[in-house]
């Protein structure tokens, strides 16, 4: 919201210390985000009279202008505009002037002849859009003085304010002025008085058909109107506020809204059918053409202002219609000033996608009794350009019972102190909030507080407590630290997640954070089922699927890096996935995804084993159950009991190809919501032996149908507690071995806690292992 300093000053007698005023406004909760200086004079630009002009034979686009800046010295300026005559008074930017666009004026020579500055157009001086020629000043302008001074140009200072949602009143200068006045300990300028109505009675009747949506509607007819330009100061302040001056009637209408916050609408009374208003809901599909030249189709939830013949002439609170627009020939206006039900206005605004200065105010909630001040000010200002203005008898103030009545709130001073940490007496509270319009009645130690009509946001005691804090000053409420009586710390899940992340980082994996939304194509490319939960309103069309797997995101990341000549990238992500569910919410869970470029499935299993060992996890690896999108012969499901808790292996080459990845991709995916949920038993100490160990190397020929894991298990069972370490150190397939078999070479480290093992002991182990593994079809070699 742009608050113009001069407009604020009309309402509250503050000085011109802009920064200090901005600080005060900020500290009462209306953050000033910026202070703009608009218009005014450009230092270094002075008035000068054209003495003569002269063409130069070699210069087609510029001519020489000789001017007098009041000191009798003839100055020479090159100029590209030809609209001046000898005797004209023009603005001369002297060398050294910095123009509003940042350009510095230098005595730049053309054809070897220097220039004593630059003559300026209106646009160059930030005085409008006119750049057709040099600005010609009035004939009686004194010479050699700053042009702004000569023209009576005034600088406007604008505070850019971030108006909070709970301060609908602060969209008007009056609302800001009330807070500022309270802080300065002074009063707001009283409202002007509406002049007495004069005969004849010219009444714009009002019929409230749907009064619940418009509980108050006033109309007043003003005659003796003469449409023309506004006074400069009104035009200037409107411009500074970001509005375009149009004519005196429209400008006053806008100005009054900016000042008092109360929107109003002026209709040409002579074009108002039936000479009155009818406020009713639209019919579904009813259309009308609004002031912005668009045809609007309405619904039965939109409120219309119609004339007395039921012809729509405006969408209530949003925009007027073209048919009753003020024109140059208007001589009488019917002024509408109303209060509309805010929530319904917001619905219409959202539905139509049409937010205007007026609707923005109505949808936040207006003062139910701001109409009087606004109407009086309208008349006062329009009189400046229409001295014959008549306030006709017959004004109408139509009301419906739904007009809100402000509440009286019980405010307990003990409660104020308890919440703010500083004690406040009822009297102190009264002193703080009465200046901004709250009316207090003392009830013992407490107060009954009548909320002003312009503060519909205040509906409970705590709203008043905030007002007390705000006006007292947050800075003065002190800083204390509550004593936490709970032990701080991470939960078990959080501690385990941190441990997991540390292990992942130690394994050389780098953490990625891909986008959680996917396109349908991406799930398909990854070979994953297309079922997913969708966004209703995605930011990017098609980017609307909530991920069901971390894999597509990681594949995109790997592809990006590969395309930037970074192969062998190893990434992990810990993040949420959101599979569909019929429950209240999707079946969201936390997952770990790992993709290692340039690595194969055993590398993924090795990572899984390392994590499992570090985290105390266990799971069954089932290669017969191939997870979607993974290599059919190099992948397995990880399961715990009946639940699938992950997948391990390699990305299906089709999927890798679809993501433009050429490397082999090891992959590991785990459901962390399951795996991190339980505290694993702490690792139990196993004593280390003081006796020497013996190594036993055994190579087995084993059919491909039997997994190494099974052989592992058989060896472990056969050796019992003598086995302290079992390492698979070689896998061989090929020449010398029967078809469909491979050789697996293991090193068994044997050790006893009680004694040194003898050759016989080792031989006995070997025999047991041989016997046990034979049963599964393994042949011990050598």
């Amino acid at each position: 919201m742009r608050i113009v300093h001069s407009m604020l000053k009309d309402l509250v007698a503050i000085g011109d210390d802009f920064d200090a005023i901005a600080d005060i406004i900020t500290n009462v909760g209306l953050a000033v985000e910026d202070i703009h200086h608009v218009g005014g004079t450009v230092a270094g630009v002075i008035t000068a009279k054209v003495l003569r002009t002269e063409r130069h034979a070699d210069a087609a686009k510029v001519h020489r202008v000789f001017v007098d800046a009041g000191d009798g010295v003839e100055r020479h300026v090159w100029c590209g505009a030809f609209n001046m005559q000898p005797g004209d008074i023009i603005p001369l930017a002297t060398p050294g002037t910095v123009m509003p666009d940042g350009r510095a004026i230098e005595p730049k020579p053309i054809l070897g002849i220097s220039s004593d500055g630059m003559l300026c157009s209106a646009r160059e001086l930030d005085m409008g859009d006119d750049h057709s020629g040099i600005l010609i000043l009035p004939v009686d302008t004194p010479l050699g003085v700053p042009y702004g001074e000569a023209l009576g140009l005034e600088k406007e200072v604008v505070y850019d304010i971030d108006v909070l949602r709970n301060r609908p009143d602060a969209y008007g200068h009056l609302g800001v002025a009330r807070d500022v006045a309270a802080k300065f300990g002074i009063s707001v300028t009283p409202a002007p008085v509406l002049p007495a109505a004069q005969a004849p009675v010219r009444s714009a009747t009002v019929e409230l058909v749907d009064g619940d949506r418009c509980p108050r509607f006033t109309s007043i007819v003003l005659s003796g109107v003469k449409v023309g330009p506004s006074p400069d100061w009104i035009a200037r302040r409107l411009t500074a506020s970001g509005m375009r001056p149009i004519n005196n009637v429209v400008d006053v209408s806008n100005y009054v809204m900016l000042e008092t916050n109360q929107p109003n609408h002026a209709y040409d009374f002579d074009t108002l059918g039936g000479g009155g208003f009818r406020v009713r809901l639209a019919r579904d599909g009813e259309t009308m053409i609004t002031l912005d030249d668009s045809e609007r189709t309405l619904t039965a939830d939109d409120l219309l202002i119609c004339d007395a013949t039921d012809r729509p002439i405006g969408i209530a609170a949003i925009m007027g219609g073209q048919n009753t627009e003020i024109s140059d020939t208007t001589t009488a206006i019917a002024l509408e000033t109303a209060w509309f039900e805010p929530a319904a206005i917001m619905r219409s605004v959202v539905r139509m996608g049409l937010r205007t200065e007026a609707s923005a105010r109505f949808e936040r909630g207006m003062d139910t009794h701001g109409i009087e001040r606004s109407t009086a000010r309208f008349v006062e200002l329009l009189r400046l350009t229409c001295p014959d203005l008549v306030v006709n008898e017959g004004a109408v103030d139509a009301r419906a019972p739904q007009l809100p009545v402000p509440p009286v709130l019980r405010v307990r001073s003990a409660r104020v102190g308890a919440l703010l940490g500083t004690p406040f007496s009822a009297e102190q509270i009264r002193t703080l909030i009465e200046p901004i319009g709250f009316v207090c009645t003392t009830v013992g130690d407490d107060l009954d507080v009548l909320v002003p009509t312009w503060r519909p946001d205040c509906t409970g005691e705590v709203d008043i407590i905030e007002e007390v804090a705000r006006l007292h000053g947050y800075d003065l409420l002190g800083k204390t630290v509550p004593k936490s009586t709970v032990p701080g710390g991470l939960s078990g899940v959080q501690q385990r997640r941190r441990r997991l992340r540390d292990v992942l980082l130690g394994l050389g994996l780098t953490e990625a954070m891909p986008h959680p939304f996917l396109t349908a194509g991406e799930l398909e490319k990854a070979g994953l089922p297309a079922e997913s939960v969708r966004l209703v309103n995605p930011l990017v069309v098609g980017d609307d699927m909530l991920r069901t797997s971390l894999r597509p995101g990681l594949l995109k990341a790997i592809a990006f890096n590969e395309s930037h000549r970074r192969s062998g990238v190893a990434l992990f992500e810990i993040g949420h996935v959101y599979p569909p569910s019929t429950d209240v919410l999707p079946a969201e869970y936390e997952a770990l995804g790992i993709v290692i470029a340039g690595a194969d499935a055993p590398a993924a299993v090795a990572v899984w084993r390392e994590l499992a060992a570090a985290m105390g996890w266990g799971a069954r690896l089932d290669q017969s159950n191939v997870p979607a999108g993974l290599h059919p012969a190099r992948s397995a499901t990880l399961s715990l009991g009946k639940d699938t808790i992950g997948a391990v292996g390699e990305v299906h080459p089709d999927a890798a190809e679809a993501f433009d990845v050429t490397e082999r991709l090891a992959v590991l995916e785990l459901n962390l919501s399951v795996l991190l949920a339980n505290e694993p038993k702490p690792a139990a100490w196993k004593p280390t032996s003081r006796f020497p160990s013996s190594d036993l190397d055994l190579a087995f020929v084993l059919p491909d149908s039997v997994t190494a894991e099974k052989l592992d298990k058989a060896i472990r069972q056969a050796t019992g507690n003598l086995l302290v370490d079992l390492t698979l150190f070689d896998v061989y397939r090929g020449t010398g071995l029967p078809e469909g078999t491979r050789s697996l070479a293991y090193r068994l480290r044997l050790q006893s806690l009680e004694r040194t093992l003898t050759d016989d002991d080792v031989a006995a182990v070997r025999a047991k292992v041989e016997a046990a593994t034979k049963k599964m079809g393994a042949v011990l070699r050598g």
Partner: protein
Amino acid sequence: MIDQILAARESALTRLAAATGSDDVRALELEVLGKKGSLTDLKAGLGRLATTEEKKDAGRALNEATTAVSGALAARLGEFRRAERAVQLEIERLDLTEVVRKPSRGHAHPVTQAWQRLEDVFIGLGFQVAEGPEVETDWYNFEALNMPANHPARSMHDTFYVDHGVPGSTVLRTHTSPVQIRVMQTIPPPIYMVMPGRVFRNETTDATHLAVFHQIEGLVIDRGITLADLAGTIESFTKAFFGDGFTSRLRPSYFPFTEPSAEFDIRTPKGDWLELGGCGMVHPNVLRAGGIDPEEFSGFAFGFGIDRMAKERHSINDVREMYTNDIRFLEQF
């Protein structure tokens, strides 16, 4: 015999003086003190001496000779070994900046690093950490937080709606505040909790805004909690996280779920003010939605962005850089 002993001793010491390396010393040791060494031979001859006196004198001379020679041998061997080791060490000299293989450490995402540092600071201040779902019901995300349907403040949040259940009933959480309600529903006061997590806003991204980003939120509910407690907690956090030279202030603001509400700014040692986040006293309606009696307990809440902490710590000029998953970016942290 004594002459022979002295001669053997002299000869051994002379040859030792001429030795050029540890191998010479070991060979000499064998020749003099070995099984068939010169002094060993003489020892065997002791028995053949006639008198006890002679035996005694020769024995003493032999012992002295043996001790002297073996001592000299050992000393010389030590010298040679040290010299030879020194030569060997020099041969092994390397330029330690000729590193061919690079250790491959993984890199935690800068946002995770910021997230954990924030958690750790709050844990130090006595807070626990809570989490919640990212897909939320409208009730937890808005209604329970004093934003019933059609509440104007809802338009402050550009919400992603999720096609799940009754239309409009499911959203991607626009803030971490729904976790406040979930915490209140499960843990009786006193509550000292921070709630970090991923949040979503349906708005176009730019250098300082993301549609998917991270927030951390704090919630304290206990008996007698005041706005001054909020200001003091923010101040403690500011000093603990940013450093001793930093201070903080609260400015009035508006959020539907807190009242009084405030923005909190931090002041750098240079004197600049930076807007950090929003905070306030938990609104009585929010306490009620969480099943807590606002007449018995009061509390405060605060929240701010995690991504921005990472962005500013590492002087990253555009938040979007953090989500490229470009290994050249990730490896920097």
